[in-house]
């Protein structure tokens, strides 16, 4: 389509001053004109691939991006224990063995809310990834936390039975707008979200905050009216703390007299040791390490998952190795790389002669051979893997045959399955077509006359092969190796079935964390590392062999 522009530009160029820019027929510089034409073309091309581009963005790039984002995300600690995290930030790990009473009081409130919302087990699972033992800690605490602060509830009620009345709290804490909306609520749809009265947050900050949480939980979790429910014990705990901290009660506040009387009486209340309550749920609450872990992982973003992927951990003193009995990932990465290499090499050794036969046999036999190569390729992966299970097991076909021939003794059968050997054998078989097909398509294009020419010039069979034929087939080996190696490095079904515990890959661990332990952050981090390794190999391959030397076909 640029022919016309080209022609006129050429004509014009003859007549214009050679030092100035070349001009098109309409007088614009040729470069601009050409660019405009090309841009139009590019835009049209983009328009054509737009559906594909959008599809890839939505179904591939975005989910992967979101998954990888999980490898650094860590909002759950701060979201579930907001009060605790705030107070815990001031804890000096060196000055005291465990945090002070303020932290335990904050924890009691946070845990009460989390337990009612059933979020505490999730937080326990999250922290359990860092140190096993924390999941049971949070579960056990969740069972008992509603009793924390009960002593204060009893003392407030003994002082004035009105403290037991839900309406007292509504009078003090509820905002007028919510009161109106709540009165109009007819049972349909979601309840109006509870709102605090103006200014109450300054007078009784702790109590207002926990009472708001209480009211909202009652509304959303139990679908009840907060005006009819007795507050949690932790609300009384907070009220005691606020009053003791010297809250100044404005005279015009609802129940100011009750609050003033309570403030006077609170000075002589019997105090409760919240720490002791928590330790009675689980003695680990008095464990410095538990608190250090919560403090270390309170930030919304963490490098913890990536460190974990390398058998490292984040401690308050910096990065350190994980305990000996938890180090598995480095071993698994190395094992994955070594075994993938072994599989790739066995595929080259087995696939090369077959590729050669396919390319050089008369077409009748070659077609038959081709079908034999493709037939397993078309069979379900699970079926082929299960077939290997039957073949390789101790009482399996191969062992039976070897015993029958007399190569191995009956009581000393070869261990071919549930170990690395089983994985290498079956994966070599499964990935073999990915090596044979590129090899075949490259070998097909090597003219047989080259070999004949080499021989007629005096080369031996070996020299003719090694100096003439082999170099021309290298692009096929390259393509096959990249395919097989990259497929192998991410394989998981076959190792899972025949690999036992010693023949599994890093992808089995990723699958475990995705589907069983639900440690998606760690799975994402492991996946990201695997991706970087593959890209690293690709880059190295490009530097050494050159990616232009890879051919998938003629």
């Amino acid at each position, binding site marked *: 389509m640029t022919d016309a522009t080209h022609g006129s530009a050429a004509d014009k160029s003859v007549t214009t001053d050679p030092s100035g820019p070349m001009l098109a027929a309409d007088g614009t510089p040729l470069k601009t004109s050409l660019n405009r034409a090309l841009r139009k073309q590019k835009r049209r091309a983009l328009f054509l691939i737009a559906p594909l581009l959008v599809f890839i963005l939505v179904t591939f790039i975005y989910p992967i991006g979101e998954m990888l984002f999980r490898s650094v995300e860590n909002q759950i600690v701060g979201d579930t224990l907001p009060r605790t995290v705030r107070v815990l930030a001031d804890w000096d790990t060196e000055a005291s063995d465990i945090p002070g009473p303020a932290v335990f009081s904050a924890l009691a409130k946070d845990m009460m809310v989390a337990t009612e919302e059933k979020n505490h087990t999730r937080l326990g699972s999250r922290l359990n990834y860092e140190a096993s033992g924390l*999941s049971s800690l949070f579960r056990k605490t*969740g069972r008992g936390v509603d009793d924390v602060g009960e002593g204060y509830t009893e003392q407030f009620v003994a002082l004035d039975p009105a403290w037991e009345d839900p309406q007292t709290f509504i009078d003090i804490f509820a905002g007028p707008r919510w009161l109106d909306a709540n009165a109009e609520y007819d049972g349909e749809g979601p309840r109006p979200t509870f709102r605090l009265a103006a200014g109450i947050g300054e007078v009784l900050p702790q109590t207002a905050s926990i009472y708001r949480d209480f009211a909202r939980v009652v509304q959303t979790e139990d679908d009840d009216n907060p005006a009819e429910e007795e507050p949690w014990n932790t609300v009384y705990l907070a009220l005691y703390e606020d009053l003791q901290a010297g809250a100044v009660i404005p005279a015009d506040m609802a129940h100011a007299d009750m609050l003033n009387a309570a403030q006077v009486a609170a000075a002589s209340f019997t105090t409760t040791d919240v720490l002791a309550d928590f330790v009675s749920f689980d003695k680990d609450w008095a464990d410095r390490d538990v608190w250090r872990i919560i403090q270390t992982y309170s930030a919304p973003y963490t490098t913890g998952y990536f460190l974990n992927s390398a058998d490292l951990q984040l401690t308050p003193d910096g990065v350190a190795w994980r305990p000996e009995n938890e180090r598995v990932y480095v*071993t698994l990465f190395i094992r994955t790389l070594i075994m993938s290499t072994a599989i790739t090499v066995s595929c080259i050794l087995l696939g090369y002669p077959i590729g050669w036969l396919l390319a050089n046999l008369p077409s009748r036999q070659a077609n038959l051979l081709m079908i034999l190569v493709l037939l397993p390729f078309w069979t379900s992966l699970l079926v082929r893997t299960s077939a290997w299970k039957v073949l390789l097991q101790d009482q399996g076909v191969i062992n039976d045959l070897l015993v029958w021939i007399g190569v191995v003794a009956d009581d000393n059968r070869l261990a071919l399955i549930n170990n690395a050997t089983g994985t290498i054998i079956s994966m070599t078989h499964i990935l073999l077509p990915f090596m044979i097909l590129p090899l075949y398509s490259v070998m097909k294009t090597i003219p047989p006359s080259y070999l004949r020419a080499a021989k007629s010039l005096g080369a031996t069979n070996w020299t003719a092969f090694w100096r003439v034929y082999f170099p021309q087939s290298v692009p096929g080996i390259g393509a096959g190796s990249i395919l097989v190696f990259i497929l192998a490095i991410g394989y998981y079904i076959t190792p899972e079935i025949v690999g036992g515990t010693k023949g599994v890959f890093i992808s089995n661990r990723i699958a475990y964390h995705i589907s069983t332990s639900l440690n998606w952050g760690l799975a994402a981090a492991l996946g990201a590392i695997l991706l970087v390794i593959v890209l690293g190999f690709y880059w190295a391959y490009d530097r050494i062999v050159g990616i232009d030397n890879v051919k998938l076909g003629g």
Partner: protein
Amino acid sequence: MTLKTTLAATTALTLAATGVFAESHAAMSNDMTIVSWGGAYQNSQLKAYVEPYVALHPEVNVVWDESSAEAVAKLRAMNEANNITWDLVDVEAADGIRLCDEGLAMEIDVDEALAAGDDGSTATDDFGDSLVSDCFIPQIVFSTTVGYRTDMVGDTPPTDICAVFDTETYPGKRALNKRPLANMEWALLCDGVAKDDIYDVLATDEGQTQAFAKLDSIKADTVWWTAGAETPQLLADGEVVMGSTYNGRLFSAIAEQDQPIGMLWDAEMLDFDGWVVPDGLSEERLARVMDFLKFATDTQRLADQAKYIAYGPARASSAPLVSTHAELGIEMAEHMPTDPANATNVFVTNYGFWSDYRDDLDSKFQAWLAQ
């Protein structure tokens, strides 16, 4: 004229039929996905609960999912994705407690939702101690025990659970469950810990280390299974000399398939298995599930299940109704884990412990396996 009338009549009929159809089915969904353990056990549920129910309600279409072993993880993931695709899930007691604590299973008022016992007792009384959680509707009492190849153990068949750890007397591979349950308890028991102290010991780091050390002694000889049907298969193939699985699976392999397999009734881990309903089902789906649940957990249905597999019914009122095997005519009661002759040295699983410690020990166990 006639054509017009016919058309009009047909249209009216169709409309009416559609109306009736829509009305009768607005209340209850016709599709129900039931999650179970596969194999002989799932088959017993199909025969005893689902087939009779579908005979009464032919419009119901039941889909099975054999994912009970990873039910907790999958329900957590479904909750995360906000897309609950299961209607009824068969889980062990400890998992029922876990799911209830996490808000993933629905709390069910047993007396309101389930049928009273045939003997007139309320559902609560009838189920008794098996109601371990507000969300868990028990079906069966089962046990995890060990089966062995009778032709591979010589003249001295094992009688003691510790034969699992005795590779000198019983050389060969063992099949064990790829999760800490039962393995940890047996390891401590055979390492000299008194039966009553096992869960106290297992709650400590030292106790866990001790259990792993004991398991280390047979790690190289162990094939790890994930589905209950694997051990009977491995035993039948002669791949392992002994292996743990659920007693009903061993019964099926021995009595129904006539395999050369024997089973141990020593320190078998007694546990409950039952239904939970995932939280957050739509009204129509929930209505169907509750209707099925009421039917499938009544006295007769629970007793019927015992015709197909050797597990004890969870209702006290079902026990007298347990009869003979549906095809073989064998008296089933004596193959139940609850039979006094079998329960001489039974080990009752502490589901409370496992609901608290499962996450901790799972992660340690998997790390131990990977090393």
